[in-house]
């Protein structure tokens, strides 16, 4: 059947009878809808039979003609524009219910039937509102009462003798008039009070008009203006002001967007209050205008930030450098504007509530209310105090500093548009600091209302950075965070200290460096940084013990929000009054609360890292190995090594060969059954080519360096710098031992017995040798016992109690610095060190002199070949003759090429009171070949005496100082006192 009808429709379309086709289609659709709606087997026209009806109609159908098209058009028109509820139709429909006509059905039919009937007949229920009908013309209105009677519930329309209702139109008109009479904003509205009465001291409402009349005539008062005056009631004025404060259009305050007072509200001078003079009203309104302006500026600022925040996400084709470096909208800024927005909304809600109160009181529904501008002013001040002004000031100040301009900023809403001249993190810190300072200022002034509101803004703004702290401790770094990634490779020994640092800004020129850490976080920033680094390192080491991110309830699973921490901390102070609760805003209290919050996490992370380093990375094993080698703590093995080395030197062989050094060490270290060091990790090397001069000066040993290939995470503790210090200490000990061994090789007694003519000279040599060896032994004793051993023991004790990698590094560095200073290796004791080296050199020189004097009678247990030695001796003697040994010269030369960096740095402290040690065995005296050995020894002796005394004075002054090393030097000074005895 459907197909048949569709055939008709198609035919119509082909014949260009679109209207007809549409109408037919619409009718068919309506029929289908109707059929679906009334799927009732008992209905008069059964759905199943509809096709039959259609078939019947189609069978009877004839081609459309003009009348058909007209009908079709009419039909479509009726469908698209449902007929107004023409009263006649309703009437007819009701009458059509023939069997139910008459009075009897009025009681039977429930009201719903009427409604339903109306609804189903496709028309909307006739509106009962009189407003609709008031627009109809009189002829229609006349019939309305009748319809209303029928449409009304039967109870209302029941009585036949019901009094005739007055025409609704008039009543409604009256209502409109009444309502309009209260619409004070209409231009034709007039107050009901008289404005022309004479001034009466007992009637406040005569004041305003009187003043206006007087001043207006004179045209002296600009405020009064010349325009037509209009008086409104004060409660209406208050409503208008409330609207103005919410930033809506109103009559009392006008928004200026240009001119001298651009972007501000100004009072409207044409509306007057009866009982206020123009000046009084103006001053009251100005105060409101100021507040409204503040609020409006804040609103514009907030919406600008919001707009920016929304736009950035959709705008990925901005240049990356702009996006990253000077991203204008930071998370902190967005959070701040959200918090400010919250305050603004609270204010708007408050205003709306006041307005509601006024309306209710006016309608008689609420409490009686006194409404006046002044009382509104006071309530606002009581409820909000200076909150918004302060926020605006903060924003302006921060904006000014962000832009680095000197003039005050007014249009803060352009902040997100213009480029900032500081990185986001610094800006965030600046913003938070300014807020906190504002809070504290207001607390100290006793303005708890503002302080409370500002505090809530502050806590809202601090939320993102606090969340960043949480993420950082979970090993995720935000761009905006106050921790900066220097992008060092993980294996860099400086990675731990310099890989991540607290962000700083500025520092160029005279501007002080400004950290990106907000003040309230500054006390915990360092531990947060360290904890984050510890977590990161642990993650790198794949220690998943407590850091598994995915396990619920594990590390950092519950990072409290900033406000929660604040709430907890404030809760502890609960009960002691709101004032003391607010005093909590001090930086110290905040820091303490935050410290409490992060402490557990920090210490846990650090502690875990420390345990991992000690337990799994064999920290102590490596430490003792390093100490064994560098500090010669393992005396026997290292003595062997040193002996091998000295033999090599004495035999004039290339002692500083890399392979020789390491092979010798390996042989020595692996000789014993006890493996005390992993020799594959140790590398000896000697930089420089001074192997030839090693028999003239111990400075030749300066180039010694020891490398210990420490495994990965421990490199942070034993970095290259540390190893350098270890090497320098090793070199010093080696130098002392070298001097000692040279001196000990000289055999004075016995060997020379046969030469009686030399007896007196031999005595002089003997005395000199004992003096030298006394000093060298005293020095070695001091260094080995009082410095190295004592310090190592103390360090080990402290080191075991270290709870974090930072502590470890710090302790180790301190330990090294202590040893270095006690060994006089630091720069401020440069002079002393040089004096010591001079004495050690003197030992070697003495040995040479002795050999020249008495022939080679040195005792060398490791001498292998007479042949070799003979050749060497002859060479040595030959050189002895031609060589010029000038200690001062040689020292100068050595200092120049071995420690160039040192030469710029002379000691600061000792230079002033101590003379430069002059080892004045001058070239002229030394070079004189005819000079006797005795003279030479005398010179040497006096020179030694001067040097030792100089060292003694220096050490005594160090011992008398207030430094922590004073006691140790006291020991040395005490030992040196024996020099004079």
């Amino acid at each position: 059947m459907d197909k048949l009808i569709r055939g008709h429709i198609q035919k119509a379309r082909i014949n260009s009878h679109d209207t007809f086709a549409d109408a037919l289609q619409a009718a068919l659709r309506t029929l289908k809808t109707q059929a679906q709606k009334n799927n009732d087997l008992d209905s008069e026209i059964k759905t199943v039979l509809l096709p039959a009806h259609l078939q019947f109609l189609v069978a009877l159908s004839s081609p459309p003609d003009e009348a058909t098209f007209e009908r079709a058009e009419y039909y479509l028109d009726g469908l698209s524009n449902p007929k107004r509820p023409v009263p006649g139709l309703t009437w007819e429909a009701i009458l059509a219910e023939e069997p139910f006509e008459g009075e009897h059905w009025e009681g039977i039919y429930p009201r719903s039937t009427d409604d339903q009937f109306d609804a189903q007949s496709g028309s909307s229920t006739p509106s009962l509102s009189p407003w609709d009908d008031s627009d109809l013309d009189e002829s229609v209105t006349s019939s309305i009462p009748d319809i209303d009677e029928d449409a009304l519930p039967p109870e209302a329309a029941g009585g036949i003798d019901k009094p005739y209702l007055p025409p609704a139109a008039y009543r409604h008109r009256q209502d409109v008039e009444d309502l309009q009479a209260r619409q004070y904003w209409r231009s034709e509205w007039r107050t009901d009070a008289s404005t022309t009465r004479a001034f009466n001291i007992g009637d406040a409402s005569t004041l305003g008009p009187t003043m206006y009349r007087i001043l207006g005539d004179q045209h002296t008062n600009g405020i009064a203006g010349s325009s037509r005056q209009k008086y409104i009631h004060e409660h209406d004025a208050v409503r208008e002001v409330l609207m103005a404060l919410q930033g809506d259009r109103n009559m009392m305050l006008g928004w200026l967007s240009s001119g001298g007072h651009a972007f501000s509200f100004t009072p409207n001078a044409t509306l007057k209050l009866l009982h206020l003079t123009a000046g009084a009203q103006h001053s009251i309104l100005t105060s409101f205008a100021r507040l409204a302006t503040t609020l409006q500026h804040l609103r514009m600022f907030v919406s600008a930030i919001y707009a920016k925040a929304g736009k950035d996400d959709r705008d990925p084709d901005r240049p990356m450098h702009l996006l990253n470096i000077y991203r204008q909208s930071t998370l902190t800024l967005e959070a701040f504007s959200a918090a400010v927005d919250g305050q603004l909304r609270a204010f708007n809600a408050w205003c709306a509530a006041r307005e509601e109160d006024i309306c209710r009181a006016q309608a008689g529904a609420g409490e009686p209310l006194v409404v006046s501008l002044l009382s509104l002013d006071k309530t606002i001040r009581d409820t909000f105090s200076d909150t918004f002004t302060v926020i605006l000031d903060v924003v302006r100040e921060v904006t000014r500093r962000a832009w680095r301009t000197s003039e005050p900023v007014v249009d803060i809403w352009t902040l997100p548009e213009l480029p900032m001249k500081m990185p986001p993190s610094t800006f965030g810190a600046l913003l938070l600091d300014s807020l906190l300072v504002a809070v504290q200022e207001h607390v100290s002034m006793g303005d708890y209302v503002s302080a409370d509101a500002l505090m809530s803004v502050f806590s809202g703004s601090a939320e993102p950075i606090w969340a960043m702290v949480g993420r950082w401790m979970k090993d995720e770094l935000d761009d905006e965070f106050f921790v900066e990634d220097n992008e060092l490779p993980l294996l860099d020994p400086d990675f731990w200290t310099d890989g991540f640092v607290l962000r700083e800004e500025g520092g160029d020129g005279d501007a002080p460096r400004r950290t990106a850490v907000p003040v309230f976080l500054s006390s915990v920033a360092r531990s947060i940084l360290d904890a984050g680094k510890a977590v990161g390192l642990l993650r790198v080491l794949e220690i998943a013990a407590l850091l598994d991110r995915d396990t619920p309830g594990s590390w950092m699973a519950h990072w409290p929000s900033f406000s929660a921490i604040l709430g907890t901390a404030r809760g502890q102070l609960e009960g002691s009054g709101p004032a003391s609760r607010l005093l909590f805003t001090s930086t110290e209290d905040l820091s303490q609360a935050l410290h409490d919050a992060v402490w557990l996490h920090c210490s846990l992370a650090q502690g875990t890292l420390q345990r991992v380093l000690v337990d799994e990375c064999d920290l102590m094993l490596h430490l003792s190995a390093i100490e064994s080698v560098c500090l010669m703590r393992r005396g026997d093995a290292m003595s062997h090594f040193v002996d091998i080395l000295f033999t090599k030197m004495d035999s004039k062989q290339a002692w500083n060969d890399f392979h020789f050094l390491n092979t010798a060490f390996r042989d020595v270290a692996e000789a014993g059954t006890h493996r005390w060091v992993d020799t594959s990790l140790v590398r000896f090397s000697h930089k420089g080519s001074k192997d030839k001069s090693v028999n003239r000066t111990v400075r030749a040993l300066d180039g010694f360096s020891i490398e210990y290939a420490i495994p990965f995470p421990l490199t942070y503790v034993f970095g290259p710098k540390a190893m350098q210090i270890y090497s320098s200490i090793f070199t010093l000990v080696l130098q002392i031992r070298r001097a000692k061994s040279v001196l000990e090789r000289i055999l004075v007694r016995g060997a020379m017995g046969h030469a009686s003519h030399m007896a007196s000279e031999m005595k002089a040599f003997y005395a000199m040798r004992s003096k030298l060896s006394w000093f060298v032994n005293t020095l070695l004793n001091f260094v080995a016992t009082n410095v190295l051993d004592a310090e190592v023991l103390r360090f080990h004790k402290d080191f075991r109690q270290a709870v974090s990698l930072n502590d470890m590094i710090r302790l180790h560095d301190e330990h090294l610095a202590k040893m270095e200073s006690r060994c006089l290796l630091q720069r401020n004791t440069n002079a002393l060190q040089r004096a010591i080296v001079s004495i050690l050199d003197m030992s070697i020189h003495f040995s040479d002199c002795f050999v020249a004097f008495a022939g080679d009678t040195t005792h060398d247990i490791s001498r292998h070949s007479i042949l070799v030695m003979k050749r060497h001796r002859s060479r040595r003697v030959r050189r002895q003759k031609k060589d010029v040994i000038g200690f001062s010269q040689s020292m100068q030369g050595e200092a120049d090429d071995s420690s160039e960096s040192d030469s710029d740095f002379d000691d600061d402290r000792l230079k002033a009171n101590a003379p430069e040690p002059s080892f004045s065995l001058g070239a002229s005296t030394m070079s004189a070949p005819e000079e006797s050995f005795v003279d030479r020894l005398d010179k040497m002796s006096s020179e030694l005496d001067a040097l030792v005394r100089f060292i003694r004075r220096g050490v005594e002054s160090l011992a008398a100082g207030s430094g922590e090393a004073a006691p140790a030097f006291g020991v040395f000074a005490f030992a040196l006192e024996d020099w004079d005895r």
Partner: protein
Amino acid sequence: MSSRESDRITAAQQTLDILYDISQLLNTGLDKETLATCVNMIEGGVNPEALAAVIQELRRESQALSGKPATNGR
């Protein structure tokens, strides 16, 4: 009378209205009363084709009686 009964009557009325609209559009030349009668007959079980044929026949008869030419036809 229940509201259900009245509903049914209303629905029947509406369906009849729509059928009348369609009949107008199809230019069947039936007025509303005739249509109602025909619908009733079909509801009663009359074959629609037969009924249509009867009506056509009756129209032709009346035309023949009045002597006018047919205005409509298939």
